[in-house]
């Protein structure tokens, strides 16, 4: 029997973090967007122990400040895109500047220097990634997906999809469906 699952990465990460940090006896505050303030930890414990425990779950403690900021930008973008109501109110640059408390110019420079791409390109990539998941789930029409992701029209979504992946939404859907039928591992 094959069942399909959908994950909420935010809830998942938070649960794991709390569980592990509590077990270690660490006191902390979660600031969101991948930032935690450690307010106290047992004497025998150091940062390496924490990094090691979290590493098992693929959670990495980022030591480099620039990388840490880039990760927070990415997380903030992901949260905004998945939040239909807020996404329609904010534009990305104002949202990032307000949430992360840096000027957008600064954020944009750090991002481009560190990731080979721009914030704008990343937003497109992330939106299309969400669109792909929604297309595969097959519960929403393309029109509904376009509306959810704040595209002005289906045509706009389709054009950006084609430009980003080189494929039309329907070809993409066909390929993924055939992959599942043949049970190709990825």
């Amino acid at each position: 029997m094959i069942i399909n699952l959908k994950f909420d990465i935010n809830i998942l990460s938070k649960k794991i973090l709390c569980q592990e940090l509590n077990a270690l006896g660490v006191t902390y505050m979660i600031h969101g967007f991948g930032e935690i303030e450690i307010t106290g930890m047992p004497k025998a414990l150091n940062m390496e122990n924490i990094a090691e425990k979290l590493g098992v779950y693929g959670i990495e403690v980022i030591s480099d400040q620039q990388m840490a900021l880039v990760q927070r930008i990415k997380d903030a973008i992901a949260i905004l895109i998945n939040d239909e109501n807020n996404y329609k109110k904010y534009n990305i640059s104002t949202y990032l500047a307000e949430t992360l408390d840096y000027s957008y110019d600064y954020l944009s420079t750090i991002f481009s220097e560190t990731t080979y791409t721009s914030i704008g390109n990343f937003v497109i990539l992330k939106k299309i990634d969400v669109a792909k998941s929604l297309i595969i789930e097959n519960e929403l029409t393309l029109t509904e997906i376009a509306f959810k992701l704040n595209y002005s029209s289906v045509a706009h979504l389709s054009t950006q999809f084609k430009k980003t992946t080189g494929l039309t939404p329907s070809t993409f859907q066909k390929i993924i469906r055939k992959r599942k039928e043949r049970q190709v591992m990825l």
Partner: protein
Amino acid sequence: MALHTLNIALADDDEDDRIVFKDAIDALKIKTKLSLFVNGKELMDYLTLPNIILPEIIFLDLNMPVKNGMQCLREIRENTHLNAISVAIYSTSSSEDDIEETFINGANIYINKPHKFSDLKAAIERVLQVNWQYQTSILNRDNFLLRI
């Protein structure tokens, strides 16, 4: 941070194509280490050696003697040790059926070999940039398909 070096592998039986590919990669700003293989068998023998640094991405020509690109793709996807590697098919074929078939068999990227050097450079750069995002961000790798 200093971006780490990307490890890349290319299997192509045509020597000229290998040289042009290497020139194009060397001309990019992205730091890379390229390993070249003359056919699919050589590539697969290398990938299954113990203690090697696996490439982040493999470029595969489809038509090669001894072991062709499609066979390599299937072996890579069936091998749990290798199946996290991104696979880019790099071929002269622009038949829709060929393209679809490689995607269904687990390819992430399909590049029609461009004729112009500048186009090849641009194509490789785009592939590496997008692939980098898939490695470093929460994006769904199962859905990573790109046709250039």
